[in-house]
């Protein structure tokens, strides 16, 4: 958070004149040679939001064709999660306001051009239709005509996989997604030379290079690679905007270029990792795992760095070239500790009960909380309903496993970063940003969640004392930071616990703290709102000092 403040101060101090000077000194780079560039004036470059939700897959994957994967994906759930992520990223209370904070255009929406970069080299792991469709819907909602929204992968050698998308899109068939699928760069003005930092140039998608595209949305997938520290994510996804050249410096440079970060507002406004399924080892071949993560932020290097650390390493068990991975951040002048990882619970955690009658989540049964002696995090147990996680606590590291899924009493046990103190489990992170861990007791209140996404009020308080394995949840929902009048507060206790799979060394007893008032009635929404406001503010302060990635 301090870094966020620093960013803000930097930006403010730089001012328009400073920015102009910095730009005059650049060598075909939108990214300045010193200092930084705020991709979005209201969203820190360092803020990265993630959502993990196993229910984004309706069925277990067997067939790995693009069509079969898309059939298995719960589109509504994915898109609701994306709304929740946007609200968290932009710190807005409605999805509409959030997306409008994220996506900006200097032109009227009706004449704004939007490009969506997907990666089609491995048809078994491409951006799922639900994700692409969501962005098309957002743009359509703003008033961007379908003809102005182009999905592309311009690599002339391996971009043939884009044809997998064509049957889902149409400008004339209203039952399909209203957008254009570009064959290679044909729908993007062709290919042209674009300057990149260092004085060289490379073939580039023309509409990106020439500034025709106003908004560039970068949708990458989570895959391994032999280069780039053994991962390929949003930065390398621009192979297909720029011609491939497997040199790490080249990858960084194209991501500093005018083509990508130029424009006013900055062209590339969102980097998104569809990590519902993922390749551990390679950028091609059959995906090995389904982490069920979505990750996004406004700044690709931070998104990539934290996806590597938090998903690929902690969840998927991959190993990487640490020096190269660190250089994702340091090449852009940031420290690896600057990046901020925020996990939001899945949407649809609770139903929208009438005001004041939302029920708390089913009682979590936090069990098997154990010390994180090995430093490994809790297992991702926790069930679909009413089962708290079996995470292990930890003194300082991100602890334990996750709890149950939405609407139930899932609790994340184990401490969150630097919390989850001695002798007890950590916290609950329902509906909101993150909770702080407890020092001698079980979890405590999370901050509020997002309206319509998992129940507004969240955060069952409490948990039990150290190491307990309890079946009773915490206090009733208390209303979250974003609670809105008339919205229901429901299922607070346990929208999905957040997977945290690494624990701290020498853990403690890691209490199986749990949350969620087991079947309790929540208070009336008005009372909850009031109470929630107070609690949320306190917690926000707590959280704000604690949400930096370690």
């Amino acid at each position, binding site marked *: 958070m301090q870094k966020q403040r620093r960013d803000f101060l930097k930006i403010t101090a730089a001012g328009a004149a400073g920015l102009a000077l910095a730009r005059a000194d650049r060598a075909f780079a939108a990214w300045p040679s010193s200092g930084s560039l705020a991709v979005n004036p209201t969203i820190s470059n360092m803020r990265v939001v993630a959502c993990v939700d196993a229910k984004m897959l309706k069925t277990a994957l067997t*067939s790995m*064709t693009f069509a079969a994967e898309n059939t298995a994906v719960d589109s509504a759930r994915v898109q609701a999660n994306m709304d929740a992520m946007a609200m968290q990223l932009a710190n807005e209370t409605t999805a509409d306001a959030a997306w409008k904070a994220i996506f900006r255009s200097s032109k009227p929406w009706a004449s704004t051009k939007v490009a969506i970069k997907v990666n089609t*080299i491995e048809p078994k792991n491409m951006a799922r239709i639900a994700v692409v469709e969501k962005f098309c819907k957002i743009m359509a909602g703003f008033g961007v005509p379908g003809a102005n929204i182009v999905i592309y992968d311009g690599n002339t050698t391996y971009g043939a996989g884009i044809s997998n998308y064509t049957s889902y899109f149409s400008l004339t068939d209203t039952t399909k997604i209203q957008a254009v699928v570009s064959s290679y760069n044909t729908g993007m003005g062709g290919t042209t030379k674009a300057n990149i930092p260092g004085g060289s140039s490379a073939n580039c998608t023309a509409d990106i290079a020439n500034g025709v595209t106003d908004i560039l949305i970068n949708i990458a997938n989570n895959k391994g690679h032999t280069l780039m520290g053994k991962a390929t994510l949003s930065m390398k996804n621009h192979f297909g905007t720029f011609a491939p050249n497997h040199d790490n410096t080249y990858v960084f440079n194209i991501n500093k270029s005018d083509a990508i970060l130029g424009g006013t507002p900055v062209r590339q406004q969102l980097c998104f990792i569809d990590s519902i399924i993922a390749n551990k*080892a390679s950028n*091609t071949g*059959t995906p*090995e*795992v*389904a982490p069920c993560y979505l990750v996004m932020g406004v700044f690709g290097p931070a998104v990539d760095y934290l996806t590597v650390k938090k998903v690929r390493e902690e969840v998927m068990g991959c190993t990487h070239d640490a020096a190269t991975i660190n250089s994702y951040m340091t090449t852009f002048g940031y420290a690896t500790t600057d990046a901020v990882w925020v996990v939001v619970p899945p949407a649809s955690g609770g139903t929208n009960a009438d005001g004041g009658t939302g029920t708390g989540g089913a009682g979590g049964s936090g069990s098997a909380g154990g010390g994180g002696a090995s430093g490994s995090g809790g297992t991702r147990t926790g069930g679909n309903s009413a089962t708290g996680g079996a995470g292990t606590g930890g003194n300082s590291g991100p602890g334990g496993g996750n709890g149950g899924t939405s609407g139930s009493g899932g609790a994340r046990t184990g401490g969150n970063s630097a919390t989850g103190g001695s002798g007890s489990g950590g916290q609950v992170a329902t509906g909101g940003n993150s909770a702080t861990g407890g020092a001698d007791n079980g979890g405590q209140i999370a901050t509020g969640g997002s309206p319509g996404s998992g129940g507004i009020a969240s955060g069952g308080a409490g948990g039990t004392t150290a190491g307990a394995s309890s079946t009773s949840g915490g206090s009733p929902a208390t209303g979250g930071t974003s609670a809105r009048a008339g919205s229901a507060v429901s299922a607070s206790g346990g929208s999905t616990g957040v997977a945290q799979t690494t624990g701290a060394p020498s853990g403690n007893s890691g209490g199986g703290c749990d949350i969620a008032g087991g079947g309790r009635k929540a208070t009336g929404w008005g009372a909850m709102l009031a109470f929630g406001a107070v609690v949320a503010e306190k917690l926000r302060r707590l959280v704000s000092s604690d949400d930096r990635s370690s």
Partner: protein
Amino acid sequence: MQGRTMKTSLTVVCLFWGLGFLGCGSNTTSSTLDPTAFGEEFKLSSSDIQGWSQSTAVMSFWTGKGTELEIRIDGGNEPYVTRGCLVAMYQDLVGPDPQACEVVVMDFGTEAHANSMFTYEKQLRSASVPIAQYDTSAAIGSATLGGVSVYAYSKALYFEVQLTGYADQNAAVSVAAQFLRILESKAK
């Protein structure tokens, strides 16, 4: 006694057959390093394995020299190229719905190079799924979503068989072994 002898003989035969996959030769096994001819040599048809045929999807069949692999697999080509891939064939097949298979055959010129590629993939993927009738030093599988990916080599040839569409991994492994045997038999 007779039964035991037969059992022992069978074991020995199987062992030799499996180890045979390792081969003793060290030279290029394909008759030519021309990508087209190489593809024709190893391309699987519907008569090779019942119920399987080439996919009609784009890029379902591709051949090229090792130096052209980037076209097919982007930066993923690097391990193959550095280990000496000379020529390659990729083929996507579809089997009984929803089963699908991607077959890769490469000629590395020497057994040592092919072995190096196999060992690399085995370690990279922590592959540990045994393939019936093959020694794990010559063929090994790695679990994937909906199936298995098998890596193998024989003489200078290197193989990958990626099967998906299986709820039962054992069934996938069994089919992968079939694919391997057929590919091996196609080597001239």
